């Protein structure tokens, strides 16, 4: 099971004169469930943006399936999906249209066009919205009219509908009540079943602040001031580890 899907080699990211990520080395193996811990401003969001190829690091190399992003084609790159901390939905589109945006990668231009005209099929979108406990009456509501928790779940549904093998989630439990948190956590960590025949292992990295949710993860990474302080199995997590990063 130890095949590496994502790898960071000596990554640094500088913004003006601030060193936001500092010489990060990280290997993420297929099927791993990783929790990313660190206090506010420690660089979690930046790390996730480097991992999904949105930010180019100032130094070092990111490898997805042992290749750099430039060498990969669009289909391979679309194997990563992200739930952003600030959601990044399209405010003027409806909830179901936003969820359908997750399907853009596997469909052609005509699908995008139909989605905007509101004449595409929303069957799959509705299925994932239901899984996220979103109800009928918000399907065709504009994002700007939704509550914080509803928006959060639309963003999660948009990401899950991509059925990608690698999921990066940045504080996905924001704005959710305790019951929803359990539901969503299970959805995020659940293995995908795209081919209906076999469960393919899903690699998940979740940045979070809730230490009580760590139980379902295999690994914990602690980051502080843009540096990885520890990268260990969850069972080995001790109090001193947490004292180091908080």
């Amino acid at each position, binding site marked *: 099971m130890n095949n590496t899907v994502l790898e960071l080699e000596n990554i640094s990211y500088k913004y003006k004169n601030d060193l936001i990520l500092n010489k990060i080395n990280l290997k993420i193996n297929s099927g791993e469930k990783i929790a990313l811990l660190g206090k506010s401003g420690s660089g979690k969001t930046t790390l996730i943006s480097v991992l999904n190829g949105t930010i180019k690091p100032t130094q070092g190399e990111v490898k997805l399936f042992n290749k750099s992003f430039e060498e990969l084609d669009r289909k391979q790159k679309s194997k990563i999906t992200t739930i952003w901390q600030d959601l990044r939905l*399209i405010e*003027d589109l409806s909830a179901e249209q936003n969820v359908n945006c997750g399907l853009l990668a596997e469909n052609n231009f005509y699908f995008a066009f139909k989605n905007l005209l509101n004449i595409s099929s929303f069957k799959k979108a509705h299925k994932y919205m239901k899984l996220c406990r979103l109800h009928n009456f918000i399907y065709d509501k504009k994002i700007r009219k939704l509550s914080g928790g509803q928006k959060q779940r639309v963003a999660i549904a948009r990401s899950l509908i991509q059925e990608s093998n690698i999921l990066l989630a940045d504080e996905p439990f924001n704005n959710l009540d305790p019951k929803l948190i359990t539901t969503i956590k299970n959805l995020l960590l659940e293995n995908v079943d795209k081919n209906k025949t076999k469960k393919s292992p899903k690699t998940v990295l979740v940045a979070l602040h809730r230490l009580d949710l760590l139980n379902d993860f295999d690994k914990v990474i602690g980051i502080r001031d843009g540096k990885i302080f520890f990268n260990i199995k969850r069972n080995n997590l001790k109090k001193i580890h947490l004292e180091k990063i908080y």
Partner: protein
Amino acid sequence: MNKLKLNYTSLSFLPILVCIPLGYQLINNIHFGGFKLFQEFLISAFNPKIDNEIIITVIKRLNETILIGFFSWLVSIIFGAIFGIFSSNIFYKIFNIPSFIYVIIRFFLTIIRSIHEVVWGIILMQIYGINFSIGIIAICIPYIAVNTKVFAEQLETIDYKSFESINQINAPKFSSLLTLIWNPIINTFKNFGLYRLECSIRSAVILGLFGIGGIGTSIFLSFQTLNFRELWTYLWSLAILIILSGLIFKKIKFNTTNKILSIFFIVVFFLTILFSFSYFLYFIFNNNFENFNSVSSLFKSSLDLGLFDFLKLILETIILSLLSTGIAISLPPLVIGIFNNNSFKIFIKIFAFLLRLIPTPVILLTLLTFNNPSLSLAALTLGLHNAGITSKLLFTNLDIQDKRNYIAMKSLGIPKKTSWLLGLFSQQAKSYLAYCAYRSDIIIRETAIVGVIGSVGLGWQLQESLSSFAWQEVAIVLIAYSSIAIVGELINGKIKNSLT
């Protein structure tokens, strides 16, 4: 209040100082020969000619104007949106195209935009002869460039983060592009596109004055034959058209979730593109370029225009723009502030409406009844017309503004005019000035229209050179024109940035 402080409020009033040189020249040029004519012109406003014959003419001419206006609007809005996409930076980001191409396209569009549709019209008429479709083409050329700019600017407002998130989905590039630009494009069309229809109808009227046809031509002919009662029939019918179209568009609500309507729009969209292209090809291959024999004539014809004359014309055009802008900025707040009561307000609103309604060449011709042609007269005309436009904006903004300060100041016993100035206008001044900066871009372009008729500046020279087929001079005048407009736009851009 004993020291004049330079703030936005005083800056809105200071430009009225242009009235000193302006008034001086106007008084020196006064003549009383046409006083009776002027009187007749005014009286006829209340007594337009109405009979069966003229009503039929009005309907026929209005039809032509609406057709020119509508088709040029349709073509220019659709191509404006398309070129807007291709010159927006979101397009270059998604497709990883080097951005110098975008700089080149923008520069090219700025040049096209800097030349007024009347100038395009006059040039095209000289080349192809008078022709209905010349009107449409003449309006479309600068309008496409203007619309392109507006669409591109609206596309710049797309949040960079939503771009990143859609990009990260790794969809086909055209899918990502379409998904991101969809709403900005539709919103721009709703907020700006419909207003442009009114603009293109106005432009169709003005081109009519120069012989393209439609109600504008009738207006011009009736003025030429001093048939003022007929003139006012045309003017009032134009007013009704503009008011009606405004009302209709306020009622129309675009429902983008309506499938049949969406499909209808798409069909119109593609038909327009198809039609424009085939017409474009037809136009190119089916016209003998009678007067424009060959490009080489550009380099052959001897240049009658001396450098000194040329510089003088440029200077005249710049002064004309400055004087008109001064009037357009300061006159509305001054008049609204001084005559600040309800009955006067209605009077001012009607007067401003008339100034907007009556095409500038007609205002100029009217003023010529008691003043000899001069630079100041042309400036007054252009200034008044644009003051009609700026005052509409000022009225609208003052009406929706929170009036608590004003009421509080009045109840403290502060004089009404002072309370209006400090409690009401001062809060508007900044945005008003920003709008005026934008307006002055347009004024620079419009100097061409009054220039042709009032025999000042480059506009007049253009007419002269065209009628003697001196293409080299025409080219030089056009270059001078667009340089002034581009420099003006750069300066105004700086001013606007500092105001917003």
